[in-house]
């Protein structure tokens, strides 16, 4: 069984932070919008803003998935280890000759 160190949990939190930062970035790009440009530019500016709002949002979603993946690894490890612990306890009864 592979050991999952605490640093995996630390990394999962950091990915969560990245998710929040990119969600904020996505909103910033959305806010940038197309106000102020001339009519000849504003359409392209709006398309750009819309596309990049989505790109940044998707990148943030990727970060969230990465955090979820690491948490899943931790959960699996903890569950496996818990099972091992109980099996270990059960096996303990057979370690000594009873009669």
């Amino acid at each position, binding site marked *: 069984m*592979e*050991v*999952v*160190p605490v*640093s*995996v949990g630390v*990394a999962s939190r*950091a*990915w969560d932070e*990245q998710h*929040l*930062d*990119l*969600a*904020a*970035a*996505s*909103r*910033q*790009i959305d*806010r*940038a*919008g*197309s*106000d*102020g*440009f*001339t*009519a*000849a*530019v504003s359409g*392209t*500016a709006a*398309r*750009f803003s819309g*596309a*990049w709002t989505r*790109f*940044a949002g998707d*990148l943030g979603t*990727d*970060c969230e998935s*990465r955090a979820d*993946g*690491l948490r899943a*690894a931790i959960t699996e490890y903890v569950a496996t280890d818990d099972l091992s612990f109980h099996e270990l306890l059960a096996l303990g009864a057979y370690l000594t000759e009873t009669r």
Partner: protein
Amino acid sequence: MTTVTVPAEPRTVPALVVDPEAIRGCGADLRAASAQIDDLGTFVAGGARIGDWTGLGATSYHDAIGPTGRRADAMSLALRAVARRVDAHADEMARLRTGRDDLVDARTDLIRAIATLRAEIAAATEADAVRLQLESDGLARRVTAFEQDLTTWVDAVGAEETAMAEAFDRVLTLEQVERAYGGVADPADGALATKPPAGATPEAVNDWWDGLTREQQLAVVVAAPGAIGNLPGIPARDRHAANTVALDRDLADWGSLHPDLLTDDERRWLDNARAADEARREIASRADPATGEPITAQVYLYDPAAFDGDGRIAVSAGDLGTADNVAVVVPGLGTDATSAPYHADRAATLYEAARTLDHHQTNATLFWIGYDAPDNLPWEDGWDAAGVVREDLAEAGGARLADTVDGLRASRDGEPAHLTAIGHSYGSTTVGHGAHDEGLAVDDIVVVGSPGLGGDTEHASELGIDPGHVWAGANSNDPVADLGNHGAFHLEVLGGLGLGDDPVEDDFGAHRFQAESTSRGGPNPFLDHSKYFDHDTESLANITRIVNGDYDAVRHADHVYDPWLGGPEDPEAQRRPTAPNTFDG
């Protein structure tokens, strides 16, 4: 009968509906977002790697995150490039808008001239024909020149619009982003690798910065705003750009979360960020009295988490990099980063006065919350000897102030600025320590409402500059200004709690200028401690004259003196205050 040919009226100048300031805002948002995305690339290359995790799961994880980092790096570079193009577009459209105004004026003149000529022709005789035709020919040449200018202008608008639209179009899909920027080295990386180490002099920092290409500089602004935003030696405009990226990012990050999700520290930092935002907006909302244009605001210092959350913020009214006269205003009691809007108002007020009294010179006034000032206000919290009267915060602040001034000096090209340090209240103690202990590199020192310039400074000549350039103002009714040592009586004798000698006393050797207020007095004497920067006061007028180097115009006041018998005497208390005009707005 001779016919005089009159030129046709010139074409109408097309409308140009554009808002360069809004476009600049768009560029700032894109740049701040680019910085966020860049952070992800940096994270994947460093913090996301889990060194002590091994096995199949770890291998799978590390293989998977690589492409995410590469995508983030490419997206950051693409967004940064678009942001730069948007900035350039804002500048160009502002220029073209001004050009349109000129064309409209020129067309109006031509139409008027044509109408005048027609009227003259209508009333003319045959004898006038030759002269009128010559006039008409001259007018026709002007119309032709106008038409050429108009064509050039229309072409320029079209070309600029096309260039901007193409810049957006080039990166509308992630495939385009990957093709253009995938695997491309960030210009910021090479630049940051050669950055001078911590502790380098402002001159060394400035040499490094000047040695970078503009592309590298702009890349560092976005990729690592924290590395240069508060670094002495970096030019003000680039510090401002970096701090704007950092500030906008913080506002977006913390501001987008529900307050319950923020830690206590983050809530304080967000308050500080919002105060910085409000400060820069306050300055930019005011108009230069000479030009009518919005006052340039530069975020020179931004560190919302400094001093255990009190924060560090400095924002200027005016361009610190080019102004003829630069004033650094150091506040005192009760100041932390959340006070920034209040001090922005003061900085803008001083700027307005400086430009009103002498519009031939350019100015920048920087409010500097760059040290850990005493938090408590005696009129609200009572006298707190531990916070207000001790000098240690002023000593530390003086060293920081000297670094700031050295940075301002080193970062400017061309003629050095005429630089004035202005200390108000405990800020004057900070200025005093900066000058006495650190050799503050300023041309003039001004203190108002001063409780003393530090226990080690007994005379203006000990401040490292010509004492003829040390100036002090005190409202005779200001209780804080009355705290300084007088004559033989020193507060130091009360357990070492004094802040030094009264700088408006005759023994100190500073020029005392008039600083009374027409509204002096009243039930709360502490209000007189806060009037020195109000418009139409003696104090602001005299501070402004010193800041502008107009020394002969400073209105001097008689010093406080301390006779053997009785307490100190302030002749200013008997004088009728005046209200000199400092602003026509």
